[in-house]
C-alpha cells in the first residue's frame, strides 16, 4: 500500500457512519476508496450530494468532482448550483471536510492556497470549507518534498482561514486538537516518537495511551 493510501485509509477510519463529507483534491479524494459508499454521503462543491465511483464505460463527462475527475451518481443523489452548494458548506450542513495542506501550524491554522513569491491566482473552495465544515481533517505528507517540516509553530505561507483544524493525519503520525494545541495520538507503521519529533517544528503533547503503548 502506498503512503498516500495509508493516510487515506486512516482518515476513513476517523469518519462517523452516515455523515456528510467533502473530499479535497489529492490524498483526500483517495479516502472514498476506503468507505462503504452506502453509509456516507459525499458532497462535492461543484454541485452534487451523493458522489460515488464510476466504471470506465459509464463515465459521463458532465458528472465530475471538484478535481474535474469523472464520478458516479449514488442512489439518493441530488444536483444543485454553486451558490446552494456553498450555502451547504458555510451554513455548517457538511459534517467533515478532508483537505490537503502546504502548511499547518500548532494553533491549527492552515495554509493551502498560496505560496509567497508565486502568483496568487487560485483559491477555489478551500476558504469556504475551512470556515463552514463542522469538522476539518488534514491529510498530508509529514514533510515537504525538500524534507522540511509542514507542521510548524506558525504558518509562513498565507493562511486559508483563522479557524483551527481538528485532526492531522500524516504518513508518520496522527494528531488531534486538544484545547489550544495538538496531541500526538498514534504513530503510523514503524514510526518512532523520536522520528516525529525530529521532523516536526510545532510543539505538541503525546497522549498518555501512546506513551504507554511504546513503553515510555
Amino acid at each position, binding site marked *: 500500500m502506498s503512503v498516500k493510501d495509508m493516510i487515506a485509509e486512516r482518515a476513513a477510519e476517523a469518519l462517523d457512519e452516515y455523515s456528510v463529507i467533502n473530499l479535497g483534491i489529492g490524498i483526500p479524494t483517495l479516502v472514498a476508496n476506503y468507505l462503504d459508499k452506502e453509509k456516507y454521503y459525499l458532497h*462535492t*462543491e*461543484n*454541485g*452534487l450530494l451523493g458522489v460515488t465511483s464510476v466504471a470506465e464505460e459509464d*463515465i*459521463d*463527462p*458532465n*458528472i*465530475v468532482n471538484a478535481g*474535474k475527475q469523472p464520478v458516479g*451518481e449514488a442512489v439518493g443523489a441530488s*444536483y*444543485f*448550483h*454553486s*451558490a446552494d*452548494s*456553498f*450555502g451547504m*458548506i*458555510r451554513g455548517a450542513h457538511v459534517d467533515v471536510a478532508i483537505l490537503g495542506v502546504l502548511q499547518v501550524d500548532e494553533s491549527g491554522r492552515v495554509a493551502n492556497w*498560496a505560496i509567497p513569491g508565486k*502568483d*496568487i*491566482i*487560485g*483559491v*477555489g*473552495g*478551500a*476558504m*469556504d470549507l475551512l*470556515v*463552514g465544515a463542522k469538522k476539518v481533517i488534514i491529510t498530508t505528507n509529514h514533510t515537504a518534498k525538500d524534507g522540511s517540516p509542514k507542521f510548524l509553530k506558525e504558518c509562513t505561507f*498565507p*493562511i*486559508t*482561514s*483563522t479557524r483551527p483544524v481538528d485532526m492531522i493525519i500524516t504518513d508518520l503520525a496522527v494528531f488531534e486538537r486538544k484545547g489550544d494545541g495538538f496531541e500526538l495520538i498514534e504513530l503510523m507503521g514503524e514510526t518512532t516518537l523520536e522520528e516525529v519529533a525530529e521532523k516536526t517544528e510545532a510543539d505538541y503533547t503525546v497522549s498518555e495511551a501512546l506513551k504507554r503503548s511504546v513503553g515510555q
Partner: protein
Amino acid sequence: MKSKITDIKSALQPVKDGDTLMVGGFGLIGAPLSLIDELTKIDVKELTVVSNNVGEAGKGLGILLDQGKLKKAVGSYFTSNREVAKWYNAGKLELQLLPQGTLGEAIRAGGAGIGGFFTKTSVGTDLAEGKETKDIDGEEYVFEKALKSDVSLVRAHKADKLGNLVYYKTARNFNPMMATAGKYVVAEVDEIVEVGELNPEEIATQHIYVDKIVLAEQILTKEGVVQK
C-alpha cells in the same frame, strides 16, 4: 409569443467593447462552448469576464485571453490556465480573486437585488484585505459586493420555447445564478422543446431571465470538445 430562438452569431450581436460578461461553467463542464467559440471570432475588446476559471490554456475562455480581448477576469481558480499568470504579470490582465462560495453568492445577490453581503469566508486572510468587516453576534464577517453583468452566457440542457431552462448533472454549477444577474442573457442548450413539455417542478431557471436561446454546436464528450 415573440421567439427567443436565434442563431449563435445573432445572439452575440449586443456584445460590445468594455462589457462585463458572465460565463457559466466549472472548467469546460457546463460552459457555453459554442457561444465562447463565437466570441473568439467577433471583433470585441476590453471585456471583463466573470467565470470560475478562464477556461484552460488555449481552450474555452482561454482563447479569448490569448487573443487579448480580456481586460479583467473575476473568478476563484485561475490556476487551471497557466497563461493567466503570464498576462497578469505582464500587466495586461486585471484579476479579482474570490473564494468560490463568495463568487457564487455575489452572483446570486446581483441577480436578486441585493447590494452585497457579509460572510465569514476569507476573514483574517489576504483576500479580506481592504474589505469592510463587521462583528455579528460575536463573530467577524467580511463584506462582499454583489456582481452583475451586461451579458450572461449560460449552458443548460433543455429550454422550452418560452426560455424556461432545465440543467444536466454537474453542468449546472454557476449557470442558474448567472442567468439572473445579466441585463441580457443567452442560453445555449442541447434541445429546444414546446412550451408545456418541461415539468414545471423541474424548471430551474424561469423564462423571465432568458432573452435568447441557441442550440449548442459544440459539446463536451468523453473524448473532449466535439462539433455536433
